[in-house]
């Protein structure tokens, strides 16, 4: 690309991996959680989603990982209008997106190693082709000695690191993370940020919803700041866009 993917000016519509055009979203008959969002995320960009609790950060991520649908407007992923995408194609879009869920969503009956390998198995990879990669990744996130452990026996921070490992193991085109440093100490938080930056350097588009002001400030990356379901600010962290 000829320009900085993290530039604050609107991305070219056809260059964007994520594009919101006047998108609103509501749960059932509730009032709109997200209202009239319009923005684009170029390939290889890195953004934080900030805003007070209830501003719609998690809902925004849900729209992108196709766990919810807009009630209004157009959402494009990888250049495809999501509303027009056939149901049988959607799983393949989801495989290009890694998600760190706020509530982790680990499978309690699977070992940490098996949990981390889930996206690769679903993608149809043979165990011998990823065994070593998964082990290295788990070692990197500090779970070397916990590979055989079941999630209920892991501490909160360990679960979070496992959820992160699972999200990034398939080298996704888009990485979404919902409060990924909420349960880890400062040092591990910085390690996780470095992992995300490294993935971003390799071309992954990263979008992180967080309350961690220090993390945002240290990264120097732009923010999408939500207020009451609306996009209040998109660009560098400013005084008015504190997480």
């Amino acid at each position, binding site marked *: 690309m000829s320009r900085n993917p993290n530039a604050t000016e609107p991305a070219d519509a056809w260059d964007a991996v994520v594009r919101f055009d006047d998108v609103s979203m509501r749960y059932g008959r509730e009032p709109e959680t997200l209202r009239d969002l319009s923005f684009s995320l170029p390939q290889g960009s890195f953004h934080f989603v900030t805003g007070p609790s209830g501003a719609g950060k998690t809902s925004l991520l849900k729209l992108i990982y196709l766990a919810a649908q807009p009630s209004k407007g157009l959402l494009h992923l990888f250049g495809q209008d999501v509303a027009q995408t056939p149901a*049988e194609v959607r799983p393949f879009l989801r495989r290009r997106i890694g998600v760190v869920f706020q509530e982790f969503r680990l499978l309690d009956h*699977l*070992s940490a190693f098996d949990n981390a390998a889930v996206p690769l198995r679903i993608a149809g990879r043979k165990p011998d082709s990823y065994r070593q990669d998964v*082990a290295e990744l788990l070692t990197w996130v500090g779970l070397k000695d916990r590979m*055989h452990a079941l999630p209920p026996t892991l501490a909160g921070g360990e679960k979070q690191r496992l959820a992160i490992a699972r999200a990034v193991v398939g080298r996704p085109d888009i990485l979404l993370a919902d409060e990924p440093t909420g349960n880890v100490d400062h040092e591990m938080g910085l390690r996780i940020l470095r992992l995300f930056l490294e993935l971003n350097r390799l071309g992954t588009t990263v979008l992180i919803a967080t309350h961690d002001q220090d993390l945002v400030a240290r990264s120097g990356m732009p923010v999408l700041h939500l207020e009451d379901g609306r996009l209040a600010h998109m660009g560098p962290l400013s005084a008015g866009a504190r997480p």
Partner: protein
Amino acid sequence: MSRRRRSGPFELERWRPAPFLPERDTRDSALVFVVAVLCFLACLTALGVIASDRAARGWSHQLSGEMTVIVRPKANETPDSAAARAAETLAGVPGVAEARALEREKAEALIAPWLGEAADLADLPVPRLVAVVLDRESPASARSLEQALLARGLDAVVDDHTTWLADIQRGAAIARWVGLGVFLLISAAAAAVVAFATRAGLAARREVVELLHLTGAEDAFIARLFQVRFAQMAAGAGLVGAVFAAALGAALRLGGGGDGLTPVLPVAWSDLLAVLPCPLAAALVAAVAARMTAVNLIRELS
């Protein structure tokens, strides 16, 4: 998840992917038990229907293959000679396999229950009976027997058991349809419980469905996981129910005896084969229910 993986150091080279669904789940115990019990009842009903059908056929067959001729002696001959002449006559009629005059004692024994113990049968003109066994291939008609007896100047009445046969056949048909109705009802209940329990079991694993769905698993892949798992479970439960029903059927066959159930409900060894489709049917119902539930659940998520 095997115990080997939970204890001791993690052995990377020996690692094999664990099933996406837990291999054993205590939540499924109730499902297995209920399906096994219903399959047992369904199999038992099937055995009962088959046995009662056989009994009814046996009775009908026996009655339709025989006739009884009542011979009244004329003034110039004794009852015994009249019966003997009738038996000889009937034996020569085409379609009769055997005709045998019953002894006086047997004829008296047949009518004794109606006259009471106090009656002196020696003083009564007890008619003689001739038992006729018909040829199974081309049985003679009652009319042809009557004509043959008349031609020989015998005063006789032919009883072809029509009245009894109609009653027995009607009773057998009712028993057959009632049994079939009960069997279908129990089978439908078993199918409904399998479907319901499968849905409940699948709903309890909603977190697995959601995660696989959001990680990019195709709907058919997820549905197949549950389909196979619940089909296996139901097949196992169906097998347990079928084995217990077959064991009970075998016990009836062996222990029924002449005074037991065997004459009324004649269970044959080959009847026990009727339980064989049970595990397959249970698995089929569970597979369909699991697939439909999984597809609906996934549709809710999409």
